[in-house]
């Protein structure tokens, strides 16, 4: 990013943290997103200090208590308790850890696979490109949800599996974007010039290609993070995500659904947490996209 060469030639190297931060001040929506995400990430990070109870502290005598503002509620449990008497607020706070972990690590896996394969395919072309493209098209032609449900059933319930599952199944989008960008960049005069001068792939890729990928990939990664949080919740809802004892928002929704018509708060609050988190990420993503490529904005 600090490489003046890239900035000068590509006309796209607007990805400078200082500039972005300056931009942010002019965008209330983006700022709101940042604040939301900071609060949620902070709560996740400092969960033991934020949450009044441990995530699995069960108090059987205090099961299914409504939220504090309800006439039958208790101030000891702000958002009420679930059917084991576990504090909903505390579980939601700890649940943020699981959701963010799945989102961030899942996207990291996707990014790694996507950038590697996309770069190789786009840069070298040939049979490698054919294979990678075929893999991408194959995964993309099976409806995503169906693919995820089938694989989740095979893998069974564990956090690592869920992260890998989303990492791999979401990688085709990253491959496509990377490959497309690389194909475009390869034809740019300065890259061609560098190749003409005999620069090796090992030099061109990190110096000329990677920096230019950061912009489009950052936007994509942001939106994919929120998509994964979404999908993890969906899997949890179907009983296919992390093990039941892990306080994930999806698991809480699945449990809450069983009490939907009688104790609706058990389903309402975890869903609200998901909505707020994805809202924050999306606001941030919208702003990021506009900041990186002002033309793509919606005005």
């Amino acid at each position, binding site marked *: 990013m600090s490489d003046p060469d890239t900035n000068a030639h590509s006309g796209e190297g607007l990805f400078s943290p200082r500039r972005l931060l300056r931009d942010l001040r002019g965008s209330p929506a983006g700022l709101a997103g940042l604040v939301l995400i900071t609060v949620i990430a902070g709560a996740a990070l400092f969960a033991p200090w934020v949450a009044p109870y441990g995530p699995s502290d069960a108090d059987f005598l205090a099961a299914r208590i409504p939220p504090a503002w309800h006439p039958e509620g208790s101030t000891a449990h702000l958002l009420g308790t679930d059917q084991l008497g576990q504090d909903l607020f505390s579980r939601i706070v700890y649940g943020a850890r699981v959701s963010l972990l799945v989102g961030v690590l899942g996207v990291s896996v996707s990014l790694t696979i996507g950038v590697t394969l996309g770069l190789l395919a786009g840069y070298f072309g040939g049979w490698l490109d054919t294979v990678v493209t075929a893999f991408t098209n194959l995964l993309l*032609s*099976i409806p995503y949800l169906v693919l995820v449900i089938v694989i989740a059933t095979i893998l069974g319930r564990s956090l690592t599996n869920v992260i890998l599952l989303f990492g791999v199944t979401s990688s085709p989008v990253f491959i496509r974007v990377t490959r497309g960008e690389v194909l475009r960049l390869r034809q740019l005069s300065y890259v061609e010039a560098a190749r003409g001068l005999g620069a090796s792939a090992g030099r061109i890729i990190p110096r000329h290609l990677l920096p230019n990928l950061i912009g489009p990939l950052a936007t994509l990664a942001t939106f994919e993070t929120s998509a994964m949080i979404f999908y993890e919740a969906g899997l949890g809802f179907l009983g296919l995500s992390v093990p039941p004892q892990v306080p994930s928002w999806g698991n809480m929704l699945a449990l809450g659904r069983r009490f939907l018509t009688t104790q609706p708060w058990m389903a309402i609050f975890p869903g609200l947490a998901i909505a707020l988190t994805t809202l924050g990420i999306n606001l941030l993503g919208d702003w990021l996209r506009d900041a990186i490529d002002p033309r793509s904005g*919606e*005005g």
Partner: protein
Amino acid sequence: MLRFLVRRTGESLLLILGVLVLVFFMVRLTGDPVGLMLPKEAPPEQRAAFAAAMGLDRPLPVQFAEYMTGVFRGDLGDSLRQRRPTIEIIGERLPATLELALAALAFAMIVAVPLGLAGGMRPGSGLDLAARGVGLAGQTIPNFWLGMLLIVFFSVQLGWFPSFGRDGPASLVLPAVALGFAGMGQLVRLTRSAVLEVRKSDYIRTARAKGIRERVVSLRHVLPNVAIPIVSVIGIQFTYLLGGSVYIEVVFAWPGLGTLLETAIRDTDFPLVQSITIFLSLFAISIHLATDLVYGLIDPRLRLS
């Protein structure tokens, strides 16, 4: 053009073949139908005999070869649980899912297009704010959670709509809203930005400069130009809705492909899971191919890429 058509069709066929192979072997890893289907007290001899009778004891490659032979004859196999052709079962469930997906799409369009148009025509107005809000909400609210909220509010509290099942038009309302919500958000955003784009173009400015009334401008000039991107998204939306209906169907006990898929996976009904997946993939691939061909007709440059 013919070459383009043949090549794209050929690619799609290869893709379908790939899906068949991938899905066949993947689905075989999801569990053991013998253990799940037979009563617990079934003795080992009965288990073995059952596996043999269902053809589950043979090596996987043999099963696969047999399956592929069937596929070429148009036979996707029989459901392990229901003992009848999976195609027949899918055929029974498809209308419910199509009905739901179409209703969801209709809901999304009825709300999204006017709102997007209105918002785009007057950026910064109250309606524009509403449009942006709806667009964002569609992206951030999980549809299965929305479905649950709708049940709590409209079925349990108000008693306006049934909370489950497919039982006349009233039962369609809540699931269609929940399923169409995300698409609605996307359509609002799309319409709005398309309007903004078109409004920037010269001839609209000219039309307005000539003193043509705002409503005429929007109907005669903006709408046709906005229609193209919207229509192109609808095909993709529809495929998404078919696949995405799993959650909504589960929440509302809607007797469509989604609930069928969910129980088929739980029951390790291999042939059925396989056929549903392949059917949905086929649908997606066909839509994709059709879109490509249409674009190829419109824009010859695309044929080369």
